[in-house]
């Protein structure tokens, strides 16, 4: 049994070693080195890249990334829950409704982000319509701000919240809600005190599936934030390209991962296991 098992695990282990372990080791090493003159890394080992994070400038970036990710997650939750409820209760048409949710997810994330660029620009559809209707005189600055980034994130990650919620709601025993109603609870009370707690695993899974990618987002803030809204993902990318400071970028990457891992560990519960 052991030989077969090891044989089966070998390819995955090799892949993980090459695409995860080794790269992360290199990043750790780089984060302790000094930047080369025009890029790359050089020998003097130093902690300077980490101490640089004490600068409130970078603390602000970490904070901004966290609250934008949190806002997007909460919005996703609020939007997704009733929808998941609807799909879970829709009987025969479940698969159709699920497919309709998944379909945008299947299209490119980039395209979905671009769709919002198209809509939100000063000469985009929304502003053009509002001006035609006479509702506004000058175009509204809808693009290139935090709100646009959050909107783009919610739009991109909503399916990730709907699916786990749906999975939990679908497995929930409907008789529990019925019993609650029979005992005289109003619909809202049933929802708040019976349904929601029961689908807590789905809520947690969905929140994690949305929050973590949002925390490290780069594309959305790049295209919708106008390179003014600098989040950790943008900071990392900048260091590896125009700012030519690989060690600092490496340190920023590890800080980002630490924040993500910290939150994940805090949210972990006994017995819940994906892997």
């Amino acid at each position, binding site marked *: 049994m052991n030989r077969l098992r090891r044989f089966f695990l070998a390819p995955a282990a090799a892949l993980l070693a090459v695409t995860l372990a080794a790269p992360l080791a290199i990043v750790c090493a780089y984060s302790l080195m000094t930047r080369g003159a025009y890029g790359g890394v050089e020998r003097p080992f130093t902690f300077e890249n980490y101490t640089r994070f004490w600068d409130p400038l970078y603390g602000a970036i970490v904070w901004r990334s966290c609250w934008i990710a949190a806002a997007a997650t909460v919005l996703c939750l609020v939007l997704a829950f009733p929808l998941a409820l609807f799909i879970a209760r829709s009987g025969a048409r479940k698969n159709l409704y699920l497919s309709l949710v998944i379909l945008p997810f*299947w299209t490119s994330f980039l395209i979905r982000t671009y769709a919002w660029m*198209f809509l939100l620009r000063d000469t985009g559809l929304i502003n053009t319509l509002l001006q035609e209707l006479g509702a506004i005189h000058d175009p509204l600055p809808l693009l290139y701000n935090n709100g646009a980034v959050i909107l783009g994130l919610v739009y991109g990650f909503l399916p990730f919240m709907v699916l786990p919620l749906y999975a939990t709601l679908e497995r929930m025993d409907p008789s529990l809600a019925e019993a609650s109603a029979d005992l005289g609870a109003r619909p809202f009370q049933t929802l708040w005190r019976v349904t929601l707690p029961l689908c807590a695993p789905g809520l947690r899974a969905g929140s994690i599936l949305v929050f973590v990618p949002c925390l490290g987002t780069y*594309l959305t803030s790049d295209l919708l934030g106008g390179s003014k809204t600098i989040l950790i993902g943008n900071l990392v990318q900048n260091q590896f390209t125009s700012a030519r400071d690989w060690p600092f970028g490496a340190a920023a990457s590890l800080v980002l991962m630490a924040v993500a891992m910290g939150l994940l560990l805090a949210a972990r519960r006994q017995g819940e296991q994906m892997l």
Partner: protein
Amino acid sequence: MRRGGLAVYAVGVYAFLHVPLLILAVFSFNASKFTVWQGFSLHWYAALAQDRDLIEAAGNSLIIAIVATALATVCGTLAAYALWKRASGWISGGLYLSLVTPEIVTGVSLLAFFQWAFRFLNLRLGMHTVILAHVGFSLAYVVVVVLARLRSFDRGLEEAAMDLGATEFTAFRTVTVPYLAPAIAAAAMLAFTVSIDDYVITSLVAGVDSQTLPMAIYALARRGVSPMLNAVSTVIVAGLGALVLVSERLRAR
């Protein structure tokens, strides 16, 4: 929650999800470059068909996705089976880490690793690095999906097969795999989607010959409004939509 109210709400959310894409599609037929409708035209689709670079990028994306999906599905299924038989902290931990690592970090770490490794190997960034990267980040998705299905599989079936004389591998092949087939298919679709759609990691580890469709789309999107991009989007959405509908029909049968 009244059923009617929920239904209305659902319609609203579906509209939110789909209308932007529909608008993109509508304006892909706009004769003008700007957001004022100036007549129906297939001009942008014609431009699309003649854009050699875009078509090459699409071809690259497909090749990468197919190869990466195949490799990730095989390796992931085997790994999931092994993990189900007996858990392994290291592998599970590694897969989990791979799932939660932000894309930008995966991308730059792979870039750093490849650049370092290429000092000793006589290689450069190219299709192979992209494929390797894609297999790397798809693996965890495959394992999660297949493992979830395995958790509802009765071990006794395999044991029965072995009692009847089958080797462990034969039992796996003839009893477990057919049961896993829908999950393997779902995992493959997931890996394919993730691979076709990836921009951040691919852009960092791509070489001269491996421009992919998302990279081409990003180059267009950066330049501002481009109706050709609307046309690309519409083609992709329509194509994938058709694929999903067809697969739904096949499944329902």
